């Protein structure tokens, strides 16, 4: 048994290694590029050649785009938005998955259709409205529109579907109220769904450019805008500095991913309790 397992493991390792290489090679090349001498052809670099030059690029990147402030600001509004998304989307997913009520199909259809209109189109009326509400360049102004995430509802519904209706029934019989069931039973069981949604939504919001760039001016500095400002084609910024900046920008979401993914747990046993 053990032999077969290790043989199989080795077999499955192969495609993983191949794809892993495909994933990491570009990033490695970028890393090497930053740590290369200025006189080298950046496009062809494979191995780092100058440690000191790389450090100076990183330092330049950090100081030019005030990355500390940008990371903090982005972290705050992203976390706030994700929290909002988790709460309202899980509630909505709960309602849509387990219950029947008049208008359910219509409302669900509405949610789905809203994913289909490109953002470019409704961004102008949205901006005008948020501005007139006095929320321009504020945390609420940037976050509230992004809290409406049909994708999150969609994802969570798929994770809820696995839960048997019988749980709800037995809880109901025990006298639990509508929202108590949600809070005490469904939510804990949806743990994987919630973590997945949290990580993915965080990533998407972190990477959002169009909306944050419009709605913020001086008080909040999204990192995507800070980066966009140094990759403008109209003036020159050292390519190695640009790359350094983006590698740095990649770190927070990656770390968040690793942190949260550790907590995604293995399956449900027959007794219905996640271990």
């Amino acid at each position, binding site marked *: 048994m053990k032999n077969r397992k290790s043989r199989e493991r080795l077999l499955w390792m192969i495609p993983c290694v191949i794809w892993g290489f495909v994933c990491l090679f570009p990033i490695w090349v970028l890393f090497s590029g930053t740590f290369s001498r200025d006189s080298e052809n950046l496009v062809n670099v494979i191995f780092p050649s100058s440690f000191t030059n790389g450090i100076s690029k990183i330092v330049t990147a950090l100081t030019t785009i005030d990355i500390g402030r940008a990371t903090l600001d982005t972290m705050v509004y992203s976390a706030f938005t994700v929290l909002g998304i988790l709460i309202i989307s899980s509630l909505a997913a709960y309602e849509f998955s387990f219950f029947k009520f008049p208008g359910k199909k219509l409302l669900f259809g509405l949610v789905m259709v*809203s994913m289909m209109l490109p953002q*470019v189109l409704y961004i102008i009326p949205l901006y005008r409205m948020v501005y007139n509400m006095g929320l321009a360049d504020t945390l609420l102004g940037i976050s509230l529109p992004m809290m409406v995430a049909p994708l999150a509802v969609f994802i969570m519904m798929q994770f809820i579907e696995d839960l048997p209706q019988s749980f709800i029934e037995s809880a109901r019989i025990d006298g639990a109220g509508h929202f108590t069931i949600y809070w005490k039973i469904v939510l804990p069981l949806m743990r994987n769904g919630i973590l997945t949604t949290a990580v993915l939504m965080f990533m998407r919001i972190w990477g959002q450019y169009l909306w944050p760039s419009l709605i913020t001016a001086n008080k909040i500095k999204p990192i995507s805008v800070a980066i966009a400002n140094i990759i403008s084609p109209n003036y020159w910024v050292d390519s190695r500095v640009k790359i350094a900046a983006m590698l740095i920008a990649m770190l927070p979401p*990656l770390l968040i991913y690793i942190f949260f993914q550790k907590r995604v747990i293995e399956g449900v046993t027959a007794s219905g309790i996640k271990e």
Partner: protein
Amino acid sequence: MNYLGLLPFFSLFLVFMLYPFVYGIAMSFTDWSVSSRGKVNFTGLANYKFILSGEGVSSERFLTSLKNLLIYVPVTLLIGMSIALMLALIINNLGRKGYGFFRGVFFTPYALPLFIGAGIWQWFMTPGTGRVSQLFAKIGIGVGVDWANTAIYAIFMVVLIDVWHATGFNFVILNAGTKDISPDLYDAAELDGATSWQKMRYITIPLLEPIIFMVVTYGFISALQVYDIPYILSSTTDANGIGGPGQVMLFPVMEMVRNVYLGSPSGLGRAAAEGVILMGIILLITLIQFRFRRKNV
């Protein structure tokens, strides 16, 4: 009671999504443009006729963009979904350490800002000297071709980058889905002497079906609105250059953006009309998927 649970979502939805959404659709029937300053005139289907007539720059570009979409969407979904699914299934068989390591690795392309992700692939595909284009040339594909500026090849370049980037996203969802399957089922199968391949085929995939469906559906919705990658690859200082010479990698949303910033009469109304048409296409495809699923599950 149910409505109470839906209240938070829908109240925000109504204000921040539905209103601008309806506004956008309504504007497609007017002559909304940069010069409108708040006063628009109802023009009925004029914008739609203009876009779909096949005459004139806007229409030709829009129809070309739809053609490009026709090639792009099935290819990127087929390749991307297969890889993501395969990885999500396989990774569970790797044992603790391998699992933890590769899980992080597969996600990194999605964490990298797309601008530089697309940029590095641009370098890899440089005509003549790019590593990946040289690799392809060795196996006979695209010999001497400038991928970014040639029809069809440009679309495949976008597919390449999209698959590299987005597989991380799909992988995370699918993998989390596999985690939700009870280990008891696998243990029982193990006792019956099943190989990991058989376990995958008879337990994992069927139980994963709802999530696979969701990922594919969302994949369509997302692929039909492709914008970032081709925009980054082809962006220039002039709006007409979007999509590359000959519009080889022009897609509908990019064309919408061009109309928004062009400042032509009814420009925004036309962009809105293009958006509504695209939305109609997405809706149709999604409905077909739902119908198909209901018939076969």
